């Protein structure tokens, strides 16, 4: 609550300073102007299609990463040789900013959606794999003993012990992955795409339209917040049995 008030106060201050000219209104238009621009673009302009483009890319990127990452992470967690073989590559490639792969992807796949989506997907993929297999390997060994002692083997052990025990980590990985996919998708749009919210910011830069830029930034921020907070809520709901919440 106090945060909200502080936030509104900050916006109010910005409004005043901008109108007074202390903050150069050319670079920092008053929030009200940004708001009007936002509404205008949303209702009559091209904001909606660009936002849709971003969301579409994001969904594809995340979906692909999750579909590949979770099973792969689970497999790596359970099959030691697989983990030993793949782990060094994943550890080595994890710090590589996947946006750096964009030019290569554009050469391999052409300048188009495939390259854009794949770049975002790869960013999320590594995060999801790491968190998933971390979740499996870090299971309290006692729980596995319970499984063995009480007759859970093979598929039953997986379904009844492994998966639920790893679920908190998996969900965190998915949440972080989605955030990362958004960042990379925006970065891709900013640098190479001709559509999407990232591109809108770029275009506003080129045309020195500050209000447009802030409007696009606001939309990106809202989407990012909505996604991460939304997923966090979902995670808390699903894992109501966890008393200790991971702080992320």
């Amino acid at each position, binding site marked *: 609550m106090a945060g909200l008030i502080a936030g509104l106060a900050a916006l109010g201050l910005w409004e005043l300073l901008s109108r007074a000219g202390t903050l150069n209104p050319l670079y920092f238009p008053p929030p009200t102007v940004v708001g009007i621009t936002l509404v205008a673009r949303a209702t009559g302009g091209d904001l909606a299609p660009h936002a849709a483009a971003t969301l579409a890319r994001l969904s594809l990127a995340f979906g692909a990463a999750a579909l590949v990452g979770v099973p792969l992470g689970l497999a790596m967690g359970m099959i030691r040789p697989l983990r030993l073989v793949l782990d060094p590559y994943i550890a080595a490639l994890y710090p590589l900013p996947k946006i750096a792969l964009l030019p290569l992807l554009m050469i391999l796949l052409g300048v188009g959606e495939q390259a854009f989506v794949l770049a975002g997907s790869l960013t999320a993929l590594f995060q999801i794999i790491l968190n998933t297999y971390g979740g499996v390997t870090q299971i309290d060994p006692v729980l596995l003993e319970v499984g063995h002692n009480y007759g859970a083997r093979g598929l039953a052990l997986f379904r009844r*012990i492994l998966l639920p025990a790893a679920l908190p980590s998996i969900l965190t990985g998915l949440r972080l992955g989605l955030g990362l996919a958004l960042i990379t998708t925006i970065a891709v749009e900013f640098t190479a795409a001709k559509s999407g919210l990232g591109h809108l910011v770029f275009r506003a830069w080129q045309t020195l339209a500050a209000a447009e830029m802030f409007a696009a930034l606001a939309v990106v921020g809202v989407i990012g917040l909505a996604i991460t907070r939304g997923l966090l809520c979902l995670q808390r709901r699903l894992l109501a049995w966890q008393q200790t919440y991971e702080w992320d």
Partner: protein
Amino acid sequence: MKVVVEGLALTFRTAAGDVHALQDVSLSVGPGEFVCVLGPSGCGKSSLLRVLAGLIEPSRGSVRITREKDAERPLTAMVFQDHALLPWRNVFDNVVFGPENRGVPKSERLRLGEEVLAKVGLTGFEKAYPHQLSGGMKQRVGIARALANDPAVLLMDEPLAALDAQSRLLMQEELMRIWATFGKTVIYVTHSIEEAILLGERVVLLTARPGRVKATFGVDLPRPRTLGARAESEFIRLETEIWSLLRDEVLASDRGQTGITR
């Protein structure tokens, strides 16, 4: 004999060298007997239990557990020190975990679960989750889970160690009551001499690592045993005798553990 252990030895390979947890342990337990295993820290008593549970392969020696009734019946069920309940399942689902894995049909599970929960005094808590329960209640769920599995032998790994002293007293009474009702064969690992004498019919004392059976004591106190039993002269005599032997082992174990063994 229900359980026969012969010449059991257990060695762990660790980064720091070989750890000989158990060395030539032999003991036998009769049907329906309540045997307590006592020993200093690190003497391998928990490892012994895990070998009995089939969770670890011994390096040498054998374990034979006889089960009457049908061949389907699980040999052992363990009650863990930190209850080890599955946090994502409610009390009922935790209790029927064993039968569920064995494919017992749902209606049968329902009946079984209710019955066991009533016996441990937790009727009404079926839908609660572990994190909502107190330590004593969680441990009762752990016991219920083991009982619901109807094992030939019940293994208990210091189940009351994590409770505060008052809950522990209550739970000891509970345990004795439950055991009297079910009549299971129990092998119970504990740190506390007092608890071992109070609960058991025989106390097996292990040496410091590598663990061997140092001595066995018969507990000749009448049942039901209450708080007052602790004041009986026989109780005190046993306690003194056991401690005089155990003390040396504890000191030896302390010394052994402060040095770094290679």
